[in-house]
């Protein structure tokens, strides 16, 4: 299922979060939206998932345009993780989340689908573990598996590389690759774009988001100019190495 955005804009009470966003994701393709915390990453992801009110432009998923086709879009797109809007409760156990997933569908997705999804992603955790006790990569795996179990056309997952040390990032992106492997389109959010060494197939399209100055808790580094809320049109392409500095300081933040 393809995901297309043309001149999409979302504005908040303090100004635009992003404007004139153009995106093209082919069916079964991967889009990585990367940027530091507060750059509007989560907002972009939710917008592409049909779960954010657009203030301008258009978003189409599988030919269903927002906002009229929003209901259909939301059926096609599963949100694995987009905190703070959607996330896994840290105080719930994996099995509780699994049970919840079974209850949530209109038609019950059986336990078999869930187990299948876990096995496809190779997520093998003690189901009694609390989410807060899961390693970040396993938490991502659980989130992706829970989403995958509903057999969506598109999965949206934010903070793919959150909390991951360098060696685990590869595993995180590999999980995304496994989702792609079952033919599901993925829109992922991350601090940094995936390392080309991961060998994602197909190669991800990238949207780089600049830091926005409005977040007071994080003073902008001197070397990064304030691009402010009015971001220029994003160009699909591979990331440059200049974005790597923000990673350590922005762990665990969603936008």
């Amino acid at each position: 299922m393809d995901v297309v955005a043309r001149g999409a804009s979302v504005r908040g009470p303090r100004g635009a979060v992003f404007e004139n966003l153009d995106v093209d994701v082919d069916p079964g393709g991967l889009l990585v939206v990367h940027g530091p915390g507060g750059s509007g990453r989560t907002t972009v992801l939710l917008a592409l998932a049909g779960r954010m009110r657009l203030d301008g432009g258009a978003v189409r998923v599988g030919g269903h345009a927002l906002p009229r086709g929003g209901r259909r879009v939301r059926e096609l797109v599963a949100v694995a993780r987009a905190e703070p809007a959607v996330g896994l409760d840290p105080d719930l156990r994996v099995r509780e989340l699994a049970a919840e997933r079974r209850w949530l569908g209109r038609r019950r997705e059986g336990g078999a689908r869930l187990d299948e999804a876990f096995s496809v992603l190779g997520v093998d955790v003690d189901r009694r573990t609390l989410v807060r006790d899961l390693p970040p990569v396993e938490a991502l795996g659980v989130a992706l598996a829970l989403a995958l179990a509903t057999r969506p056309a598109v999965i949206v997952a934010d903070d793919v590389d959150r909390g991951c040390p360098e060696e685990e990032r590869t595993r995180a992106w590999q999980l995304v690759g496994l989702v792609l492997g079952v033919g599901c389109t993925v829109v992922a959010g991350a601090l940094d774009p995936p390392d080309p060494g991961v060998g994602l197939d197909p190669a991800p399209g990238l949207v780089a988001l600049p830091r926005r100055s409005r977040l007071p808790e994080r003073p902008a580094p001197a070397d990064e100019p304030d691009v402010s809320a009015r971001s220029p049109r994003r160009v699909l392409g591979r990331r440059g190495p200049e974005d790597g500095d923000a990673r350590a300081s922005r762990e665990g933040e969603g936008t």
Partner: protein
Amino acid sequence: MTAIRLAVLELRGFRGPLRRFVPLVLCLVPLLYGAMYLWANWDPYGKTGHIPVAVVNEDRPAETRQGQRVDAGAQVVTELKASGEFDWAFVDDAAARTGLEHGRYAFTVRIPADFSARLATGPDAQPEQARIHIQLNDANNYIAGVMTEVVQTKLQEQVNSAAHEAYVRGVYGRLADIGGKLNTAAQAAQGLVNATTVAQQGSSAAAGAGATLQSGSTQLADGAQKLSQATAQVHAAAAALTEAAPQLSTATDAVVSAATVVSQGVDAVHTATSTVKQGTAKAVADLDRLAEAHPGLGDDPVFQRAKQDMTAADTVAGQIDGHAATASGNAHAARQQAVALQKTAAAAQQSAQNAQTPLALVDSGAQSIAVGTTTVSAGLSALQQGSGALKTAADQAHTGATTLATLIDDGRKQVPVLDSGQVDHASKVLGTPVDIDRSNLHPAGVYGRGLAPFFFGIALWVFGLFAYLFLRPVNTRALAARTRASTLAVAGWLPAAALGVLGALILYGVVSAGLGLHAQAPWKTVLLLSVGAAAFVAVDHCLRTAFGTAGDVLSLVLLILQLTASGGLYPMQTTPAPFQTVHPFLPMTYLVDGLRVTISGGPASHLTRDLAVLAGFGVLFLALTSLALCRRRVWTVSRLHPDLDL
């Protein structure tokens, strides 16, 4: 089913050293809000005995005009001591003033010096009201002042009963006087009745006497007729006598003439004899002067003889003159007798003539008497009629007097004659002539029990407000998934509702067991509390879902509005119109109303309605929450990053 599972899951999320206590703490929120106040103020009016109150008695005993002693100040003090309504301190004026100023006394009761004196004026024509001054100080405690209204009523009762004893005794004393006077009047009326009886008899007798008198007067008329005839005969005889009288007059005139002639003759003789006597007396005197002029002559015998002869002649002359004088006197006397006779004859004639007139008078008088007696007879007839009228009048007077006597007697019977016990009772009754009998269809009893519905309502609302500070109004994973909005709404509402019901049960249990609520219908109370809690949570849930943090503020506003407009505290009629307008639209209105029914009792129809309305509120707001959730499936920036978060 899904909703229930999701709800359970929601509660399972409370893990961790502190978070695990959140549901428990939430369950205790209603207890905190509902029970604490009720515990503190369960029965404040029953504990007024702990409130210190100063009593200043400056009263001096007095006496009523009837001599009754009134010492009402002391009586009031005694009654206050006995009542124990407040913690009375009997102090002087200065101590009371400073104590009130500094908060040692909640208020002061001052009995002024003229208290008894004024009460003693009760039986007077212009009784004065006695006063007791209660001095408050809201700077100490306003409610304490309000509580005095209770004691004011009781004071009034006690003082009134004391005062009325003085009043009523005086009044009944006067009543006894009036009774005595009415007795006298009754006796007098009886006397009057007796007197009119006598008058009746007298007038009867008078009528009889009138008849007798009339027959007497007829006889008198006959007698007068006879008298008249007799006087006519006498009259005729008198006329004959008058005719004879002139002849007698003529005869007496002749006698007088003769007597006059005789008298004149005798007088002439007497004159002659007197002249002789004078001559003889002169001759004697001449002889004496001769003897003196010729002293020797006296001794001459011739001379002496002549002198003797002369003296003898003089003496004889004297004797003759004496006889002549006597004869003259007799002649005069005879003439006078003749004149007297003449006069007598004239008088006789006059008398005869005079008799003529009285006789005529007597004659006419007798005739007048005859006429008069006829008149008398007629008059007596009128008199008899008059005495008949008199009898009638006497009869009427008697009837009147009898009626009067009966009336006075009745009046006397209506004046109560009371012994002292009866006066006591009467004074008690008159002391409070109207006994306001207060009964209560469904008594709440103590203050706390009466206000429990209100505080239960507050507690449950505050719970709803608190609950969504800790609970998520909606499962966001579910919101992002394909779950129905109604399921989401119920799933988000149910955890809080369940905790709310649990909290309500704890509240009810603690207030029942700890404070003694003794609800009339415990199970219905529990049911209503549960439905109320669920409904309130539904409202709070809806507000929180639709408006986020602003929903909590709205809920707070609603709480304040319901404090004022749910009718839980003061009657709605005392509140301004806007509150009365919103009153029927507030859920707490129905919870308070229903709880009153289940706790104190009342119409079951109210309870049914209240339950239905509360359930309706719950369903309505769950539906609204569902609607809101349909829109919440699409986020906005402000929702993702709320400007305001709690």
